[in-house]
């Protein structure tokens, strides 16, 4: 089903393949973030004064490392999806909209990269 011309589709003035993928991704990351988000903030509450040894010990534990990587990816993905909608809604200058979307995408991929690197570095380092 198509309501637009090929030119409009190519210019992304209308959806090329429908927004269903975005919708599902937003819902699935939201559902995943209910337990992950609660786990993260209740882990913070139990980190003893955010002491360096306590924090590295906590991060280094295999289950925490894996969950942290999962959290960073899922939050970044969910954040990218949310900001995309906000940028598209409120940014009315086409070139600025495009630039903002590209910047946001790079930023979120960057956050995932830095997050995974940091967690892995602690996870694979020798305890003090």
């Amino acid at each position, binding site marked *: 089903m198509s309501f637009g011309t090929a030119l409009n589709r190519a210019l992304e003035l209308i959806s090329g393949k429908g927004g269903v993928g975005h919708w599902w991704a937003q*819902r699935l990351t*939201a*559902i995943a*973030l*209910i337990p992950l*988000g*609660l786990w993260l*903030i209740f882990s*913070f*509450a139990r980190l003893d004064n*955010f002491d*360096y040894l306590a*924090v*590295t010990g906590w*991060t280094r534990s295999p289950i925490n490392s894996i969950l*942290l990587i999962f959290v*960073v990816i899922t*939050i*970044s993905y969910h*954040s990218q999806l*949310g*900001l995309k909608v*906000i940028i598209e809604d409120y940014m009315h200058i086409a070139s600025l909209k495009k630039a903002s979307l590209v910047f946001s995408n790079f930023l979120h991929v960057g*956050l995932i990269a*830095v*997050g995974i*690197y*940091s*967690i892995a*570095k*602690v996870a694979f380092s020798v305890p003090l």
Partner: protein
Amino acid sequence: MTKARRPLSPHLQVYRWQITMILSTFHRGTGVMLSLGLLILVYWLLAIAGGLDHYEQARAFLGSDWFKLPLVGWTFCFFFHLCNGIRHLAWDTGRGLEIHQYHASGWAVIVVTLIATMGYGILVIF
């Protein structure tokens, strides 16, 4: 070229403020704030990976007195976005779409958010 004189939708300002529109705005607002929180989370992780000296620098910043305010703010944003997000997920399944249900679930989100934020604050302090 003259613009077609099509009827405009009423401007936002003519509406009486209602809980539904406030919560909708808040959902986006808290989402943006939590995106900023993601930056801080990744900064914190990078600081841990940077070793003791880097971590202590970050801890001096993130643990400073003035930074308690944004931390409380993020706690509020987290619980609000979580509760209202669950409300959105319920709507997606076709539940709670009557007007009185919108209002009831909206107030429930506000009450649960405030209780959870205060409860979390108490948990962190003690």
